């Protein structure tokens, strides 16, 4: 199928589109007649495909390692765009994970106040 997706503008992606043709339509296989071109494009497509599979598996296993239910992990990985998948593969451990609640914040503030007090930087508690 020789349809270029809206976000796919680079030649590599165009190549990937072309190579998907033999699977979609028998006639498509003939579009690329130069042996060299076929090999180059197929190779690039294989690399892209393998990278994507590896990225999905990598993100999935990281999620599971972080305690996500394996069945949920598969659904969650499938819901990601390729760009999101790549970002998560590289940075799942470092990206901000919003989770804290106000109880925790109050607790952290209280600890900081106590430390400042103990270091005699503040004089907050002895005022009372």
């Amino acid at each position, binding site marked *: *199928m*020789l*349809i*270029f*997706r*809206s*976000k796919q*503008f680079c*030649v590599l992606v*165009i*190549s990937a589109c*072309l190579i998907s043709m033999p699977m979609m339509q028998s*006639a498509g296989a*003939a*579009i*690329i*007649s*130069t042996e060299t*071109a076929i090999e180059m494009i197929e190779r690039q497509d294989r690399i892209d495909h393998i990278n994507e599979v590896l990225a999905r598996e990598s993100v999935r296993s990281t*999620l599971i*390692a*972080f*305690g*996500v*239910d394996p069945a*949920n992990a598969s*659904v*969650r990985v*499938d*819901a*990601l*765009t*390729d760009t*999101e998948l790549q*970002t*998560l593969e590289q940075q*799942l*451990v470092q*990206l*901000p*994970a*919003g*989770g*804290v*609640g*106000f*109880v*925790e*914040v109050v607790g*952290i503030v209280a600890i900081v106040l106590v430390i400042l007090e103990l*270091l*005699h*930087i503040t004089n907050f508690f002895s005022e009372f």
Partner: protein
Amino acid sequence: MLTAWQQHGLAVGIIVLISGCASDIRNMLSGLEQQRGDIELIQTPFYPQVTDQCGPSALAAILNYSGVAVTPDALKARIYIPGRQGSLQIELLAATRGYGRMPYLIDTNISGLLGEVRAGRPVLVLQNLGSKRAPVWHYAVVVGYLADERQFILRSGDQKRHVTSASRFARTWQRAEYWGVLVLEPGELPASLDADKYIRSVAAVEAVGDVDSAVVGYGAATERWPEHSLAWLGLGNAYYAQGNLDSAESAYKTLLSMDSDHLIGLVNLSQVQIDRGCIEDAAATMDAAMYAANKDTPIYGIIQEARQEIELRSPSTACL
């Protein structure tokens, strides 16, 4: 015990640290001068946050507001990561798409944020309640603003109506790079009309396979930005993915009526014509693509091969 000198040094250090981002905050707060009138989206649901669950609580609130019946508990399975004790921004976006809504990242400033709230959409924001070095990440939902008091109103943690000063909110939001997201129904446009951003958001919906929503989204984009070629290309591609060849062809042709040399538009139109059995039309379209393409670029070779392939087909008597 610290000496007076040490205390003095510490105080100076803290002031330097604070002023490091003060000008940024000042710029941002200056945007509040133009904000007149109070707004509060009191209908925004509230789910008191269970430990670590601000992501599911906040996302459930904005999804509910947009008409999606989902509970924080159901979202927990989609976005919570026990080992990180929280939820990632990317997964909030992915989960939103999973519920048939389009996540849209707001413009990263106060007027972008309040523009959406005033347009009637609560905005889910990421805040860093700690410091840059020791971040404490938190999701909350901005539901309103009090202009005279310069206060934001949030659904946050266990507080249904958390009122906080603009400067305090701005600091915590700035430390999270002003990240905020709202959810749109398919075809609904945000208050901030950024064509490229909107179309990219639709493309992400298309990429995860929701072509029906993508058709509606691109359709809205072509109505709002009728001269935006990418919107027409996306509309054609989404129709094609639906199997709607007539509409796909018409979208590509509109695109080409504005930009007759649009290579991707030409190649895709040619494919639709092949699918419909209009081989002569497909050949003419591909000729136009060959004529328009730069001979030194790899795409030229691809187009040339495709053109030769069309030549090998027997011209059909009638198009489908």
